[in-house]
């Protein structure tokens, strides 16, 4: 089962997302701010990180930067959800690999679809890699 880490300071958001994601068959962990998220990640990498930006203590941008610095070989996808759509955020989100920017209000259906797409692609890539590895042998 794929593990998703949800980071948001709004309890309602966490609740509804958690509900929907669990229903879709994912395992969900939660954090209320960046620092809690880092703690969680250090224990075990999630498959996908979904985070808000505006959070106390350490916000989403700082969290991503931290992850970039400390885990350069990160293999999990990051989805940044935010109500802030100003240029500044588009700029920094574009500069990091494996990071997607999603604007609030988020449609749960679309999010689930996107996740599904991501994991499907991931699976396909893994298959191809295996096949290539096999063929070279």
């Amino acid at each position: 089962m794929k593990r998703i880490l949800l980071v948001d300071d709004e309890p309602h958001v966490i609740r509804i997302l958690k509900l929907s994601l669990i229903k879709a068959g994912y395992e969900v962990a939660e954090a209320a701010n960046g620092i809690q998220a880092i703690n969680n990640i250090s224990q075990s990498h999630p498959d996908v990180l979904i985070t808000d930006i505006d959070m106390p203590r350490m916000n989403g941008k700082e969290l991503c930067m931290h992850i970039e610095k400390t885990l350069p070989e990160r293999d999990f996808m990051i989805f940044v959800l935010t109500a802030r759509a100003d240029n500044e955020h588009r700029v920094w989100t574009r500069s990091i690999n494996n990071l997607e920017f999603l604007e609030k209000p988020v449609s749960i259906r679309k999010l689930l679809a996107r996740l599904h797409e991501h994991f499907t692609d991931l699976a396909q890539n893994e298959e191809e890699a295996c096949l290539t590895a096999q063929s070279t042998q």
Partner: protein
Amino acid sequence: MFSFEGQHITSEFTQVQPSTAQAAITSSSPVDFCRYRDVDWRQFKHDFGPKTMSTNRFLSAIKNERLGLMMILASLIVIMVTVFLLFSYQQKNGETHIREQGANLARILTSIPFEQLTSSSNINRLFSVLQHNSDNTAFAYLAIADIHGEILSETTSPGIIVPTATVPNKPSAWLGERKLTLPSNERNVQEFHAPLFDNGEIKGHVRLGYFSPVFGLSKNQIPLFATFALPIFLLTPLFYFLIRRELRPIVHVNNQLDELIEMSTDSKARLTNNDNLHDLMTRFNQIIISTQQRIGELETDRSKLVTSTKLLSYKRSRIESILQSLPDAVMMLDESGSVSLINNKICTVLGVSSENIIGKKPAEWCSNPEIVTFITNHECKMTRVCQAESMEFTTPEFPDRTISISPYPLFSHSNNSQIIGTLIIFHDITAEKLSINRSSEFVAHLAHELKTPLNTLAMYSESLQGEDGSNEEFRIEAANVIHDEVERLALLINNILSITKIEMGSIGVDRKRVKLRELLQDAFETCARSGQEKNIDFRLDLPRDISPVAMDKSLIRIAINNLLSNAIKYSDPGGSVTLTVEETDHSIRISVRDKGIGIALDDQKKIFEKFYRSDNDSVREREGHGLGLPLAREIIQLHHGTLSVNSKPGEGTEFIASFNKETEFFKQAS
């Protein structure tokens, strides 16, 4: 005065007003002139006719030369008197001389015996001797006469006939003198006669005649006199010419003064050309007068000039002080692109001194190539008007300061279509940028705050639409969440609207006489009801009489509500919230105290900023937008009051709204 020249009248002297003179110097005839001026023609002619003119001229000339004439008269009189005395002296002298001679000679001749005298040769010898000895000019004749008076022998001056006259018989009269008149030329002769004796007997007489000296010049003297007079007469013209030559400079000066007079004034007519020294003085005086007038005029002009210069320099210094006082830095480029004028703010903005940049093109003194390029590209030349663009830059010395450069064409004051240069204004837009940033930040905050509940609503409603919608439990949960979020959203929007309106000044403060006691009681009770679930102790401490105030009831209620709801929100269960009012002579203080989680010192500075919420977990776990306090403060400040905070984390917080009683709010109310 006028003189006639045919039919025309020309003016000569300046005694008459120029206007009259000019009226006359038309080609109207004198008759017409008189008719025009209502003057009797005959009287006019009499007064101003030629004869009267020359007489008048003559009389005035005499008047001018009074002194000279008197001197001449006096010297003439003296000369005449002297000459008279001289002549009479001469005559007397001559007479005396003659008398002496005649008498002596007669006496001598008397002693000579008669016979000797009758001999002609003796007589001739005698006569010649006598003639040589005596004063010849006066000698008229010498005659020897007998008793009967017949002339025996004589010798005379040329052309003289001895007058016939008998010698008196009386012996006492034999020796004597008498006056006779010569018949030939009517000259008087002084005759001396003496008897001639021969042996004691009178035989005859000797008659000796001398010319009486005349008064004046005798014929003999004339040549001598003429000899003296000739050189004098010859000298006189010489002296005259010499004097005239000496006086020529004066004549010359006179002429020059004439010219000066003519030059100095327009309306003065010419004076008659007179070499007289008096005229010279008069004219000189006139020159002085007209020069003084001119000086007076020049002085007036000069003082006007000084006044106008002072006025100009005052205006200029006023404009200069405006220029220097402008908050922006101003630079003017002339048509060639060189700096022609700056104000002193340029030095702080660009970091250059005025001497270094005046007269030079920007490329020479500006260290920032972007600025140089911008200025050069935006110069207004001739008819090309610079584009209305602005550029922003910051300097390394002041990295937080942003300056905008705006070029404008400078139009000539007199000719609106002519461009004479470029005006460049350096405007400090740091504050503007800050304000824009704040606005952008506010909008960003606002968007975020609005989108957050919206997001929750979206997700829950989406879920309701899906499978979860059939779940009763989920439906109830969703309904509650949606309801709460909508309330939150409504509150947020109201707060935002209120605070924005207050900041923009578009809220009308509806000041009415308010009984604070009632208002506070009301608010307190409302809040107490909603906070009851939290098991908080509510206390109200109001004095019985509070001075009436003039406030906007609804706004103040919002403010007090915000304070009370904060107190409730940030108190733990079992805490307490107290609302107090204190009144002094100068102020009224409303205080909201709680025993809640308190506010950290760092946060206390920021809690009145819009959307600020402390990072503190215990704060964050409570919902809030961060607008309650800013709004309350704005409202209180709108009523000329202040909102302050005392807090210690973990112990509690007190918010105090303080209103000065000296303000209108209170004066209006009472």
